[in-house]
């Protein structure tokens, strides 16, 4: 059972709500955090989420489709920053992932969460995790 945290921009809200119906059948325990825009997801939030979960997904809009113009660019850059930082902490960079959602967001989100969960299953437990949520 993977315990994931997913930050979703408001543009993916519909997908998020649909996800609630099938997340459990997939065997995933996902904590959804809705933010106004992917650009609101800070590095510190991703790291703090890693302290209490096995992996973190940040999901935003595709390139050139951000309602706030560059929020998706910022979010992707912050995910990349954390992925670069994790090896310095002796943790696996695969624990953090970025996903671009389009009009078919629910399907892509399902796939992104599934990919993350599968990737994590090969890594074993998050050794940096300090507590269960």
């Amino acid at each position, binding site marked *: 059972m993977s315990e994931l945290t997913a930050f979703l921009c408001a543009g993916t809200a519909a997908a998020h709500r649909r996800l609630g119906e099938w997340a459990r059948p997939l065997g995933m325990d996902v904590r959804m955090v809705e933010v106004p825009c992917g650009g609101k997801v800070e590095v*510190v939030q991703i*790291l*703090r989420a890693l*302290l209490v979960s096995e992996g973190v997904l940040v999901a935003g809009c595709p390139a050139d489709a951000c309602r706030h113009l560059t929020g998706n660019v910022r979010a992707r850059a912050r995910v990349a920053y954390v992925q670069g*930082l994790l090896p*310095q*902490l002796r943790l696996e960079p695969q624990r953090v992932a970025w996903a671009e959602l389009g009009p078919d967001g629910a399907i892509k989100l399902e796939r992104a969460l599934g990919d993350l969960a599968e990737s994590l299953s090969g890594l074993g437990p998050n050794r*940096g*995790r*300090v507590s269960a949520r």
Partner: protein
Amino acid sequence: MIVGERKPVESILAMLAPHGKVLLAGCGTCVTVCLAGGEKEVGVLAAALRLARQAEGKPLEVVEATIERQCEHEFVEELAAKLAGAEAILSLGCGAGVQTIAERYADLPVYPGLNTSFIGIPVKHGDWAERCAACGDCILDSTGGICPIARCSKSLLNGPCGGSAEGKCEVSEDTDCAWQLIFDRLKAQRRLELLAEVRPPKDWSRHRDGGPRRIVREDAAL
């Protein structure tokens, strides 16, 4: 502003290895503006250190505190209220901030979390460049407001060297030739005659060559 950058996390982890609880101190002035040591960076580093130490099996308790300025004793005093049980202090201030904290809390190890880099400006978001070398004897009046000491790779005072080509420095193609910039600025201002003036040698004793510097103003003393 003073510009710095965080040391590699591995270096910080090595410094903190003997400790189980530390105070992580941020500074709300220069290093906040250059995104190296403000409240946000304190939060990021604290979370990163917790993750790394948990993964090592040696959990680290990190108390976070960001004060207005680490280089003034009245602000540094505020850290006392958060020091209970802390075995060391990790400062995300500049070198002056680290030393002010170390002076006030002399019974604790105080570690630098940043490398203090230079006095500079943000040329664009996420990109800072050196502008002042704190030489103690400013000559910007004669160089069109462009400092050849800080911005010329060789700190030349008498025009460009032979390595200047097409406005760029031979040390790096990313670096503008400071003397080209000075010439262009003064030409645009119709003040090129400044470059023809003969000036006495610069007094480097007012720079680091004269030893640690100090300014005393009796009118400002209490």
